[in-house]
């Protein structure tokens, strides 16, 4: 049968593969090559070694964006997951209105980043107007604005995954704990949380990568203002490419560094999920 399938390669695989090679593989390889070159378009590139990388690492905006992104990622991972788990826990207790609450909390997840950014720009500026400042007056407003926005967008999504995890716990376990006289808190910490560890791993990595790669929300909410102090990595790469003549190579080098960090996070995730599979 394999043989019969094999000659159908042009129909089954070629269309996808061609599009993939043209719009992913070639741009990807070209991107790595260009990070070692000076260029303004793809055709006038010439090799300059590691100069772009040296420039990237001595670029204040880049280092600031790296620090801002790291801070943002850590804070949002903690907030989103703690709140989402609490919501999921409360909404699996059979209280009235559960399905309406789930519908409401999940909805922001479907709205695109640009639109979300401007919704929260209005909301935050409306509140800050009370003190006669705006979101771009101080980087700390931008930082916490992004955290609030990220929570608003991601809590419902993570909550759904936690709910699925909690509902998969065998009932007998909870019943046995009850018979043994365990309190609600004991059941939560000794049964529920250990039993949903795989959901926790998934959610932590989802929030981690989504926070780290954030772009649209950042562009719409503050666009890096004031003075690029609230630029995250993705936005800083974009600005380097398109708003600074002659820095295309540095932008590409920053993008490679960004890719390596994201790749490292994904490999860590793979390691953790593989370990879990072996255990269970």
């Amino acid at each position: 049968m394999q043989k019969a399938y094999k000659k159908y390669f042009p129909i089954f695989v070629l269309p996808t593969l061609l599009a993939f090679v043209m719009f992913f593989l070639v741009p990807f390889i070209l991107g790595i090559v260009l990070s070692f070159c000076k260029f303004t378009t793809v055709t006038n590139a010439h090799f300059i070694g590691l100069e772009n990388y040296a420039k990237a690492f001595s670029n204040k905006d880049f280092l600031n964006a790296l620090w801002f992104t790291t801070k943002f990622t850590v804070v949002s991972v903690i907030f989103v997951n703690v709140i989402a788990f609490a919501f999921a826990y409360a909404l699996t207790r059979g209280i009235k209105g559960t399905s309406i609450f789930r519908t409401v909390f999940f909805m922001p997840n479907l709205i695109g980043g640009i639109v979300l950014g401007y919704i929260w720009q209005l909301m935050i500026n409306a509140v800050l107007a009370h003190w006669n400042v705006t979101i771009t007056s101080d980087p700390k407003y931008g930082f916490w604005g992004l955290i609030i926005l990220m929570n608003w967008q991601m809590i419902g999504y993570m909550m759904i995954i936690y709910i699925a995890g909690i509902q998969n716990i065998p009932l007998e376990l909870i019943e046995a704990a009850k018979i043994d006289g365990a309190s609600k808190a004991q059941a939560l910490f000794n049964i529920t949380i250990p039993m949903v560890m795989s959901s926790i791993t998934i959610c932590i990595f989802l929030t981690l990568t989504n926070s780290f790669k954030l772009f649209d929300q950042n562009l719409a909410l503050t666009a890096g203002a004031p003075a690029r102090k609230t630029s995250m990595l993705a936005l800083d790469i974009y600005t380097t490419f398109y708003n600074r003549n002659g820095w295309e190579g540095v932008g590409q080098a920053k993008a490679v560094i960004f890719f390596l960090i994201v790749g490292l996070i994904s490999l860590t995730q793979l390691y953790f999920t593989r370990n879990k599979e072996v255990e269970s």
Partner: protein
Amino acid sequence: MARRGGRSSDMDVSQTTGLILTILFTVLSVAFLYPIFLVLLNSFKSKLYISDQPFSFPSGETFVGMSNYVDGIAKTDFMSAAVNSVFITVFSVILIILVTSMTAWWITRVKCLFSTLTYFVFVFAMIVPFQMVMFTLSKVADMLHLSNPVGIILVYIGFGAGQAVFMFAGFVKSIPISLEEAAMLDGCTPIQTFFLVVFPVLKPTTITVAILQAMWIWNDYLLPYLVLNSDYKTIPIAVQYLKGGYGSIDMGAMMGMLVLAIVPIVVFYLSCQKYIIRGVAAGAVKG
């Protein structure tokens, strides 16, 4: 997953605690929806009052009827942006599903070095952030004269292939091969076997992939902004377009366009909520 209520009495809380939780979550739900409500409220106010009195209801001199909407639609050419968004999303999703399901089936069934290698390159593509390829990708698309709503569909197939192939391949592995063998013995060609026997079985994954890709493409800003030439906009590009140079924004028109951008999503969500939530959850677990 979305079964109503709890599933057993022993996990349920007492009536008083239940009531307190219901009240607490009602308040939280209202707080969650409030930012959207505030946008709606301000979309009927004159732009002069939006930053001054954001929380007040539109009335008397602050009420401007639909003029923010009319303004915004004219300024951003919103209607053609909406048509582009629908066109690009619908055809990209249909084609992605068609070609990637076929590819996933072939590379799963045909065991050779080439298929294994292809599979790993597709999986690898999933972890590469867009910024890594944004410059070179837009140059390639430009060189091939694909900077239009038809051309960008090919770009989406190439860039969306990784995740879609990965998810379809995961499902194909779980389908017993005996069905396909029977079809082949009955004289079906591989193409007939795929479309008559395999594709219908893939339905749950097809729905998941369709929802994930549709959400991504519909909301995507940077890829279409860089790939499409300036004659064409999608909805996110039209919204961002209102932010002129030097950071000035026409807040009135912006409010109107935000409402127009949110409404189709909310309608779509409420009408296929079950599939969306299930699809997104399945996608998270597999992706």
